[in-house]
């Protein structure tokens, strides 16, 4: 991945060694030391195969290519595709031409998921205003976003390639529309490891009526080692499967159980000398710690009423707001990548998906907590090196789609997302669309460019963060991607 002559290779080796001997708690003797010294040579990419990583664990913190601006990421995934035309961009022309056929020039060669070709332009019924120093247009549906308008970098020129939900979500996560490639969070933890000793490096949370389309493939590690796949945390009860000890087991009893297992493992390690056993001993220790740390994570008793109000969270009640609060608690505890999915933004106009009731409803679910997360991170000094991303898999069409009511179909040529913290400009608007919102007129950012930029903020050259699989060096951005320097601080 990176040049082995890089000075950081030495730092990496040292940090790996410290981590290993700091945590391992057992002496492995000269052999392990020798493996350790030799294994971390070839930068993070090769280190996976190296003996050091085998012994110290794949989540050992690693240094990236250059100084990172963002040390961790919270990705708020708005599953279904929010309507940029009803939230983030005011189109008076669309209102004027409401009900008319779209210009033929805009329809030529375009493919849509559901539109039949006879649909007409649909102006937004919601009121817009300009807010903050940057003068961003926000609709009345997301009033709380006004509070963070100057903390956020607005990307209004997003484009993607794919217009079906599953493939488009995969594309937004993994840069590829078919399953089998690693998600962004997997790449991030593969490249950086995790700062948390007690929790997984890549955590996924879910809220809304159902899970996101494509399920676990969205946080898959693809061809990367499975240690890097996202771990779904449930928003209620035990966050992780099998976290709780069996019925009747006391903490002391479980400590005894773990001591017995460790003792048996240590004896086998002495007998057969396989460093995998040392890794397993560490894994059991982390599991034991996780049993308290993951439970403690979910206990929001220590959070003040003011904080709960800020997010709009109710104690013990699963919701997007609660998940936003959990996301903050996760990154506070060193988790590298947290991804929240919230459904359902798919407002085609169907019985449970209309623009009149269901769009305002989901905005109420999401608006306050999204803003609260940025505010809360900022006041705790975490926003500087935490990157928050708010995005769906695509946007929605300027034309109405006729179902039970008038909704909007999937649109790939122009949509809006925002990012905050972690090295992106605050209060900055990047990108503009044409007067009807069909296409991007300036500041176009493709999903591959977004990925290149996120990796850049995490300290990586997206062309050099690679993994050799089936004879090819794969990367998140495939053969594409350009870092959008215009939005960086």
């Amino acid at each position, binding site marked *: 991945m990176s040049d082995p002559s890089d000075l950081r290779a030495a730092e990496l080796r040292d940090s790996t060694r410290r981590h290993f001997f700091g945590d391992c708690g057992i002496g492995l003797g000269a052999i392990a030391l020798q493996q350790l010294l030799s294994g971390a040579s070839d930068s993070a990419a090769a280190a996976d195969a190296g003996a050091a990583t085998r012994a110290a664990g794949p989540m050992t913190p690693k240094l990236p290519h250059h100084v990172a601006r963002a040390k961790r990421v919270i990705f708020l995934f708005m599953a279904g595709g929010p309507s940029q035309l009803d939230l983030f961009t005011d189109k008076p022309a669309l209102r004027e031409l409401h009900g008319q056929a779209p210009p033929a020039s805009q329809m030529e060669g375009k493919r849509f998921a*559901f539109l039949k070709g006879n649909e007409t332009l649909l102006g937004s019924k919601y009121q817009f205003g300009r807010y903050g120093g940057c003068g961003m247009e926000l609709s009345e549906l997301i009033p709380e976003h006004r509070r963070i308008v100057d903390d956020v970098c607005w990307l209004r020129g997003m484009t993607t390639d794919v217009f079906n939900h599953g493939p488009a979500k995969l594309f937004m996560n993994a840069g590829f529309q078919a399953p089998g490639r690693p998600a962004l969070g997997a790449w991030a933890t593969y490249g950086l490891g995790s700062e948390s000793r007690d929790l997984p490096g890549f955590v996924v949370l879910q809220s809304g009526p159902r899970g996101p389309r494509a399920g676990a493939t969205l946080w898959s590690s693809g061809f990367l080692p499975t240690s890097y796949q996202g771990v779904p945390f449930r928003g209620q009860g035990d966050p992780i499967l099998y976290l709780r000890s069996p*019925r009747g087991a006391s903490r002391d009893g479980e400590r005894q159980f773990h001591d017995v297992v460790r003792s*048996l493992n240590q004896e086998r390690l002495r007998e057969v000398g396989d460093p995998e056993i040392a890794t397993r001993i560490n894994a059991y220790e982390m599991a034991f710690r996780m049993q308290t740390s993951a439970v403690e994570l979910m206990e929001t008793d220590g959070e003040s009423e003011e904080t709960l109000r800020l997010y709009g969270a109710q104690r013990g009640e699963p919701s997007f707001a609660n998940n936003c609060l959990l996301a903050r608690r996760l990154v506070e505890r060193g988790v590298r990548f947290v991804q929240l999915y919230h459904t359902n933004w798919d407002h085609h106009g169907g019985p449970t998906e209309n623009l009149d009731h269901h769009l305002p409803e989901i905005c109420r679910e999401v608006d306050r907590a999204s803003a609260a997360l940025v505010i809360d991170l900022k006041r705790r000094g975490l926003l500087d090196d935490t990157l928050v991303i708010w995005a769906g898999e695509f946007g929605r069409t300027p034309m109405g789609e006729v179902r039970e009511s008038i909704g909007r179909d999937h649109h790939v040529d122009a949509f809006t997302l925002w990012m905050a913290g972690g090295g992106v400009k605050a209060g900055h608007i990047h990108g503009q669309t044409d007067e009807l919102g069909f296409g991007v007129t300036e500041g176009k950012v493709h999903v591959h460019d977004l990925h290149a930029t996120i990796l850049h903020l995490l300290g990586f050259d997206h062309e050099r963060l690679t993994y050799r699989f089936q004879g090819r060096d794969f990367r998140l951005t495939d053969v594409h991607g350009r870092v959008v320097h215009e939005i960086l601080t």
Partner: protein
Amino acid sequence: MGRGGPASSARLIHVFFASYPFRRLFAMHFLITATTMPKFLVGIALVTGSALSALSTFEQAVGEVPVGQAAVAAQVDKVSFNDQIRPILSGACFSCHGPDEKHREADLRLDLRGHATGEDGSGVTAIVPGDWQASAMIERILSDDPDLVMPPPAAKKERLTPDQIETLRRWIDEGAEYQPHWAFMPLRTTTPPNVSLGSRASNPIDRFIANELERIDLAPSPAADRATLIRRVSLDLSGLLPEPEDVDAFVRDRRPDAFDRLVDRLLASPHFAERWGRHWLDQARYADSHGYSIDSQRSMWPYRDWVIRAVGDDMPLDQFTVEQLAGDLLPDATKQQIIATAFHRNTLINQEGGVDPEQFRHESVVDRVNTTGVVWLGLTLGCAQCHTHKFDPITHREYYEMFAFFNSTTDVNNAGATVVVEPGEVLGFSAPQWLRHRQAEQVKREAELKTILQGIAEPVDDSPSSAKSMFSHAEAKTLLKAIAARRETRTADQQSRLLAALRKAFPEQAEQFVRWETSNVMVMQELPDPRETFISVRGDFLRPDTEIGPLRPRPPRLVQSIDVPEVSQSDGDALTRLDLARWLVSPENPLTPRVTVNRVWMRYFGIGLVETEEDFGTQGTPPTHPELLDWLARDFIEHGMSMKRLHRLIVTSDTYRQSSVHRDDIERIDPRNRLLSRQNRIRFEAEIVRDSALSASGLLDRTLGGPSVHPPQPGGVYAFTQRDKAWVEDQGGGRYRRAMYTEFFRSAPHPMFTTFDAPDFQVTCTRRPRSNTPLQALALANDGAFLEFAAATSRRIMRERGDATVAQRVRHAFRLLLGRSPSPGELATLEAYHDSVAADRIGKTTLVGASDASGRSGVSSRDDDGSQAAMAAVVRAILNTDNFITRE
């Protein structure tokens, strides 16, 4: 070609200097520096610039000495193109100066000798054979000018090391001879080397292995003790633990062929067919759901059963290949042969609204091409989907010629040919009497259920209110639809929902209702008129290259030794899948047997002779033992492509039977154990983790095949999927079947699978990773299934050794789970643990029967002296050791 195959000559530094002393003074300095420098100074050396490449050389030399290859290289006089030059050119040059014309720079190809030397009139002087100083390639590599140096900084490739450059110079001076890539050359006739092995000489494998070990002065390890050996070979061949009596019998069996007998017995077992069938199912990306977002159930288990049967019958690889790729095209194809073609219907189906079916048909054909390439040829054909392959001789056009073989089947995304299959049909047994009786009963109850449901769907005033609360209006309508459908046309999802409804409506009979599904297995079927195939520009199915025109199906030409037929052998027309299948397994094709034997080898040693078992192309790793690989491949062909013979050959070698205990000298000389001076310890696959615990507990239901089963699964697994799945927990035997029969939803597999590295089977999987994580620890410690297995194992111990001492019971637990006796230390630890738990649990209730998935509720009873709980705790501790989930 030479015998070794180092990926990079830089790694050979030790041996090169032994062999070519004082070649480069500065390089010699590196060696001294690197080997004598205190570790803490290495970081300082890094900064000094001049020693930059020394560091990488040093680290690779210490960290990853591919000893066997190095030792071999030391004896080779001439530089080997395949072993030394190609890896350099492929890594640094071919992406811009290779086969792909679209990304070729300066119109220069370095992959063809004629072009690189100008001998074909290309006007190029990149390489002047015999004169490195006149060769522009070397000049550019050595240049300090960022505009001239190769590889250019913009390519973001690492600069060549002095050692690599030196190798290139020597090669040019020696005449710059090229060789075809080793894997594309015909199989060689190799003979096992003559080595003084004594008793080890009987198996040719051991001669090849010993020969390489002798070169680096490493002794092989002694044979593993018999207890370890029977556990190893039982797990490898059947995926189940040996019973203690079997261990005892084998340990006592002093006949010289005791091990051979054991192997024969295991190879004949149906559990061998399950174990190795499962390996094949990974490659077939078999699953029980459609994939993508909706991910509904599908019913492909007859194909799974076909694989089990074929593996058990030792179907030769050529027949196994032809039936799966083209069974439908065989003359007078049998139903079994048609079921076999479900192999390529394991592709995904996108059921989302608004999809373009043609797009997903195209995706499935792409997957069929790529899967065929990886599984049989060990080639990454997928690279040529968008452009000509950058490293291997596969053109963009050839990709779509291959595509044309699979482009004319009737299936289009969610529509296509199916065959109705009854359970047991494939494996050759019919439903037992009791089951037929239950089915008849079930039909009656279904009729009653229908009446209840109609009362809810079309309510009249006097419908019983209890029925109303049982099912919602919407549920009733869905269920009625399912009942209205003919049994054999019901979808798997409908069958599951119906089963759940029956159990709910008639709880007193809940356990009587069975899952006895008829399957509509999806199969391949050719269109009467083939579709036209065009090159997709940049892989985009919406951009057919009509200028080049429709393509005829044709296998890739990279393997020089095989004649590619122009017309089909069958009817003289265009080639078909049947021709492709026969081409893949023709005795002249060197790739299929090499890839096959290598993958089998990989399962037995944890790593293949070719480590990149999925990439035999120029970017893959070369074999550690190329002559052994070819010998095995040739032997395989000569013996009728029998898989069982290959298995027997490998597992009866001394190499396989060695101890896996780590040794200091191996760590020093061959830390990755690539030359096999010992066995490797291998953590089991997810399925085997469960199966082995299950077999020790005595709960295992050994039924073969049939519809997939539903052991307990924790709640909330589908909270993260778009659609809730109908997971109706099985009662009785279905809870205790082998893990390979558990229903597999691609979007949300049973968490046990994911935790232990099973892939999601979106694409073919030829090699599973082996991670080692805290989530595995939590699953083994707290999953209700493992607690239940621990309780059952504990009951088994009390049953079999109830009157024995605690120490004797612990010994028995060790024998059941680890197949060996505990050391004094292990025994003492567990005895103390036992007594401590027993004291604590006297008179309390303890789990004795079925547990739910969370392990928090289950069948319990009072434990008078705490011994049941204490023994279960001991078993649970053993289940959680690294030893238990590792085959040593």
